[in-house]
């Protein structure tokens, strides 16, 4: 199973379904998706969506940001919620990815590895 799909299935089901609905996953990733994870019972609002992403695996959330499935309002909320959350290196990287996306810049985050 692909890394992205594995991480997606570990996230909350409503978040996974919302990301699936928004077309975050590629064709080969979609093929590995179980049917029950494709459909959401309720559509999420921008704050709910950003909150779930802020609580999710930071690496997975960063991938969602980099794949451009969030609009500006969602990015703004995600940025605020990350400011409130407990800090970690991965969350810092995610915060930088969000800032870059808000500025309209694409590509990955420059950092020391």
């Amino acid at each position, binding site marked *: 199973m692909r890394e992205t799909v594995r991480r997606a299935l570990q996230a909350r089901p409503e978040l996974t379904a919302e990301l699936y609905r928004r077309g975050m996953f590629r064709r080969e990733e979609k093929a590995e998706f179980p049917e029950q994870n494709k459909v959401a019972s*309720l*559509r*999420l*609002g*921008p*704050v*709910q969506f950003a*909150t*779930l992403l802020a*609580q999710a695996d930071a690496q997975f959330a960063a991938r969602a940001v980099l794949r451009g499935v969030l609009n500006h309002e969602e990015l703004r*909320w995600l940025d*605020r*919620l990350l*400011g*409130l959350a*407990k*800090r970690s290196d991965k969350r*810092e990287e995610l*915060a*930088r990815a969000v*800032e870059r996306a808000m500025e309209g810049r694409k590509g990955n985050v420059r*950092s020391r590895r």
Partner: protein
Amino acid sequence: MSAVADEAVQAGQNVLVNSVVKNLGGLAVRSWKKRWITTFTAPTGVGKTTAIDYLDRTLTFDHRVIQCKSITTRYELLERMALNPGEKRKKHGRNWERASDLYKRIVKSVSERPFLLIIDEADRLRPDCFEMLRDCWDDARLPLLLVGNEVLTEKINRQHERLFRRIRVRREQRPLCEADLRKVLEFMGYEMADEEFALLWKLVGGSPGFAEALLENANEIAASHGVKRGIEALEGAVRYFPTFQK
């Protein structure tokens, strides 16, 4: 000045001048007048960044505000301090500017025309940035106001003894009290029943930032069910914040 006037809503500024704004403003003025290094620490979500935004618009003396979000290295901090808005650092050709050139520019400009440097989320700065700021104070008496959460105090105490000894005032802001939290939330336009506010207070304490996030989630949950926000929606929103459930 009366208490009512103290907490007056600043027309057009859209900020409630509460204790956080007043304390931070007072400290900024003191730092500037005495050319001190000062720190202001408060728990996350109390309203430090909002207060800094407000001060940035209203302080009457020269000042610069740096948000540490996109600052990750000493070089970025140097560039932000040395270069004028819109100016770019020369990195190529014969006139390329080294970090030391930028530093000299900062010392020169501060000596000629001092300004107060306010750094928001200073707890995110890397160790070499703190040392560079201390150098700026040593060489040019650059007044500094470092703002952050509890991590800032801990970082400076543990890792930056020389900077620690130069800090003249360390202000710790307590979270807002119950009445103040309610006032801020009402100012932000949230109307709540008493039981909703009681739950919020129990969960978030004096943090309007967390309270706003919870209330917005609750609003969306209620809207998706086609009802007005109530205690059920608020309890539903708590599910999205695992730290509150513990």
